[in-house]
């Protein structure tokens, strides 16, 4: 009937305009290309392996997205991942009790780091870009202090725990889903809306009685809880600690966030989009590998693909 097609059309238009559309479309595109180049893509083993590899990126991008939504930025998440990794490598052991304490310690450090960054940016009002660059040097320094050389020990049971699976449902997938559900719950609370409000227009938010400083601080702490988990998941895949391992995560997380449709100025976009953006980036690396791009060209192609993806997003936004 006429009425029904009208409703379907409006809903389709709404879906296309929805903030998650573009990253979803890109994701599907990347999956298709990936499947063409790697026919075994949908095999259980491959999916599990990919999930395990992509999860750290997904988590840290989600955390970065929350911070960016509040109107700020954190360039220290990468070295922060290294820091947590080094702490875990130095404090964990095969004894479960000790290791639980170690994990709690690392979580505390992560939250403290996020709170410090949030304090510097929101209360001291230092520009986020440079301030978090400065703190990233501090995290790197502490990591080097703990681990001047790569080493330490991440217990085997952590790896086993991480690789545990039922079908394609892995621990890593579970973690991502659980964190996203927590975030969706946060969005249904005042603080969730306030993060968007402060990112959209912090002056107006303040005039409306919102404690903008506390909101930004909270965004950083949320972001670092995600960062902690990202570090945990990547530590589970390495067997030791290394002060430099986290560095690529910083700028990649920002790229994932932008590809995911979050506006760098804040206030607009979705964390789920950023997660998809992270998968898109990871799949690009996959694609380059399976397309047999010579190793010398890989870095170049990766950068070029990102530029093209950004152009596509912009063109889409113009409509």
């Amino acid at each position, binding site marked *: 009937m006429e009425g029904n097609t009208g409703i379907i059309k409006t809903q389709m238009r709404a879906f296309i305009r929805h903030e998650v559309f573009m990253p979803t479309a890109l994701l599907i595109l990347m999956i298709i290309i990936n499947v063409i180049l790697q026919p075994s893509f949908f095999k259980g083993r491959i999916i599990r392996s990919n999930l395990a590899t992509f999860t750290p990126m997904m988590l840290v991008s989600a955390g970065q997205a929350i911070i960016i939504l509040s109107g700020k930025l954190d360039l220290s998440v990468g070295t922060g991942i290294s820091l947590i990794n080094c702490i875990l490598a130095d404090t964990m052991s095969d004894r479960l009790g000790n290791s639980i304490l170690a994990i709690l310690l690392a979580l505390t450090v992560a939250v403290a780091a996020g709170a410090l960054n949030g304090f510097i940016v929101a209360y001291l009002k230092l520009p986020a870009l440079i301030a978090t660059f400065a703190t990233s040097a501090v995290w790197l320094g502490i990591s080097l202090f703990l681990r001047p050389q790569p080493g330490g020990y991440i217990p085997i049971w952590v790896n086993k725990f991480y690789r545990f699976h039922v079908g394609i449902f892995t621990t890593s997938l579970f973690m991502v889903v659980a964190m996203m559900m927590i975030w969706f719950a946060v969005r249904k609370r005042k603080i969730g809306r306030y993060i968007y409000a402060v990112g959209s227009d912090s002056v107006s938010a303040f005039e409306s009685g919102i404690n903008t400083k506390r909101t930004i601080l909270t965004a950083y702490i949320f972001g670092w809880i995600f960062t902690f988990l990202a570090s945990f998941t990547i530590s589970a895949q390495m067997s030791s600690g290394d002060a430099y391992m986290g560095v690529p995560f910083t700028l990649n997380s*920002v790229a994932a966030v932008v590809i995911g449709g979050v506006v760098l100025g804040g206030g607009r976009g979705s964390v789920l989009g950023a997660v998809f953006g992270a998968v898109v980036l990871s799949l690009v690396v996959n694609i380059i590998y399976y397309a047999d791009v010579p190793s010398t*060209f890989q870095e170049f192609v990766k*950068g070029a693909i990102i530029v093209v993806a950004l152009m596509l997003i912009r063109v889409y936004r113009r409509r």
Partner: protein
Amino acid sequence: MGEVISNPVIRERKTFTEFLSGSGRIILPFILALVLIFVGEIFSKGFSSAKHVLMLFKVASFLGFLGLAQTIVILSGNGGIDLSVGALASIGTVFGAAIIRGNDNNLLLAFVIVALLGLAFGCINGIMISYFQIPALIMTLAMASVVNGIIYIFSAGLQISGSASPLLETLSNGVTLGIPNIMYIWIGVTLVVMFILHFTKTGISLYGVGSNEKAAILKGVNVKWFRVWVYGISGAISTVTGLLLLGYIGTAFLDIGSRYMLPSIAAATIGGVSIKGGSGNYLGVVGGAFVLTVISAVLIALQMGEAGRQIVFGGVILVLLVIYGRETLENGGSELSLERILTLFGLKK
């Protein structure tokens, strides 16, 4: 507001206080550097010697040039930043080495080609940022990735290498009349830049573009095109700096520029350039580059391990930002006035 006063002549020249309050942010980094040099002398004899200080200026000059590239981009506003300055410096080094191959006759050609290369990459940045409205943060980041990829293809893949020529080495490393040659270049560049920024159409236009883009358009500036040029020139400055780095070090190695990328932003911010655009000047950035270099040198003189150096470096930047870089003014960010310095030192209520 007081009573209406009729002013037959409005004052044209700046008062002394007005002049000083703008210069406060320029003087302080140098004072700070002075203090640090003194500290360095305590731990390492000869640190404050003229020879050593001049050497510090020499080392700082490269950061100063990349800080200049960063400054013009940040001044142009609209979230302007250039995360590709490091990568472009690296490609300047690598391509420069390949063209020169140790031969002085190729030097001029190298300068021209390297500059054009930087201009081209920079303009691509500018076109993407201006016409496709890709945020500068992300675009220059991606460009850095692309440029690094090209460097890798070029050097590792095609296995092309080369080296600096004697003339270039003299230029970057040599000394004339007791002062490093590169310092003459830096002084010259600083004078030219200050001239352009304050006395020419280009400079005045730049400040407006960064301050209020729409107003600048309505007053006749083709902002989109202007920004393409700004990024282009930033790129050219970066690559030429890479060439000079080649002369300083002697051979090309791949990643030489990346260590300068974030410090170039720090130098600009410490130098009083507001991250929002439209305000700040280069003289402060010179001070910023110098003080950052002195900090690194002091940390090495203190024989701190890498770990300690990183932590202190980060901490010092934070402290400097608290003094300089706070985003408190509605129209920009940092404004260090004489009164504020005095207040900080407890000399004023």
